[in-house]
């Protein structure tokens, strides 16, 4: 579904992504972990069309992506951001936020689609005419996920979708993402600094450091400690050390 080859991104003199390549089959999940500044979010932003200054090759369903994307791309690929406080318009109701993708893509049956999306992310219909500040962090992230689903995409790009949430809410959102994937056959690309979260959702994990993807490892190998690159080993050690406490 997603095929990225030799992706490079420069910001002025800074070479932020240095030749990253990976594949994500349709209906699968791929996770990217790394620390701040490793370039993980930059990969996601280049793929999503938020940054058009890149070189290399990116394909979705075999179609080569140009720096400027057409409308069809934005219907098929949707993104969920880390901070649900920042990614929802504070003066727009949930109804307005969910209607917008429908209008942009000229879709019909707004009423039915909005109600269905709310029920799909397990929000009560009463949330529909509320403003973001009237919702909890977890509810807001559900709205952000519902909005991403409105255009019936095939690919969801998830940038730290649970990092701003409490662990109990994180569990609910991760379960929701797993259910949605199963129900809709979505392809996920998940970026996170949390190795346990990535391994929970994704069978394959790419580890980034200094703009390079230093290792691609299956979650079974990761769990069993069969890692090759020292950075992967270090991240794994820090993650498991606390679990054993």
């Amino acid at each position, binding site marked *: 579904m997603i095929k990225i080859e030799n992706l490079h991104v420069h910001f002025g003199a800074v070479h932020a992504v240095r030749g990253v390549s990976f594949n994500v089959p349709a209906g699968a999940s791929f996770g990217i972990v790394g620390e701040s500044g490793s370039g993980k979010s930059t990969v996601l932003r280049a793929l999503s069309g938020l940054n058009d200054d890149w070189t290399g090759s990116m394909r979705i369903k075999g179609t080569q992506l140009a720096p400027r994307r057409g409308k069809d791309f934005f219907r098929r690929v949707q993104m969920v951001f880390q901070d649900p406080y920042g990614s929802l318009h504070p003066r727009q109701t949930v109804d307005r936020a969910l209607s917008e993708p429908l209008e942009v893509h000229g879709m019909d049956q707004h009423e039915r689609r909005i109600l269905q999306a709310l029920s799909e992310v397990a929000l009560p219909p009463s949330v529909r005419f509320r403003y973001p500040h009237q919702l909890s962090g977890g509810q807001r992230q559900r709205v952000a996920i519902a909005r991403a689903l409105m255009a019936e995409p095939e690919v969801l790009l998830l940038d730290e979708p649970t990092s701003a949430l409490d662990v109990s809410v994180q*569990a609910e959102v991760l379960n929701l993402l797993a259910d949605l994937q199963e129900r809709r056959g979505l392809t996920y690309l998940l970026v996170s600094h949390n190795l346990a979260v990535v391994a*929970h959702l994704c069978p394959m994990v790419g580890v980034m450091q200094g703009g390079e993807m230093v290792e691609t490892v299956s979650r079974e190998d990761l769990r069993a400690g069969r890692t090759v690159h020292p950075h992967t080993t270090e991240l794994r050690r820090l993650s498991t050390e606390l679990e054993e406490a």
Partner: protein
Amino acid sequence: MRVEIQNLTIAFPTATGISHAVRGVSLDLGTEKLGIVGESGSGKSLTARSILKLLPRSARITADKLSFDGIDVLTANESAMRAIRGRRAGLILQDPKYSLNPVMTAGAQIAESWRMHRKGGAREARAAAIDLLAQVKINDPGRVFDAYPHELSGGMGQRVMIAMMLAPDPELLIADEPTSALDATVQAEILRLMEDLVARRGMSLILISHDLPLVSHFCDRVAVMYAGRIVEQLGAGELAQAKHPYTRGLLDCMPALSQPKPRLPVMTRDPAWLA
């Protein structure tokens, strides 16, 4: 140094009535590392900050006892509180980006803190600041002394914050989510550094965090807060024996690298926990 809190309540007036953020918390702290863990809104930060009386203006505090080394915090005036704040008890916040002054060099801020509390000269203060930077394991203290906060990484910034808090030689350090904004590798370094400093100086530490495994790994004792109350207190390494369903729920709902969970258990919040 001893902090005693008995039946602490913190309330805020709201449009719909009084909202109780902390409800009857009692804690006793000696020279030890105490962790306070809870989710957003559990009252963990308010509880710790009440020791310094650093609460929003609208907060209404009541307690049977709230004392810092015998000083009654509830009745202490501002100048008495100022003798505690910074001087005897330091506060480290989550993000050094916001808690350091952006237009002063790191060194000037540490030196200011040192002079304020130790009443020394400028040259002495500079030497002390460089020494403190070395104590927080900064390799090149001379360079960092002259650097502005924006020139430092998150981990370096947090070290500068810690150095500044150590300048007056406090007896208690309150660290409110000190590593939540940092990468995992840096987080481990900062915690190790704090552990080392606390042990070497014989300080008490209150570590506030939402991360239960992290805190129990690091502290002697952990208080778990839920909806303004302490629901359970655990000794170090007793995490596996946690009894309260909320504590168990917090542990179970985390994805773990070591053991796969096909589906994460979701917490069902029992209204009885609020009682």
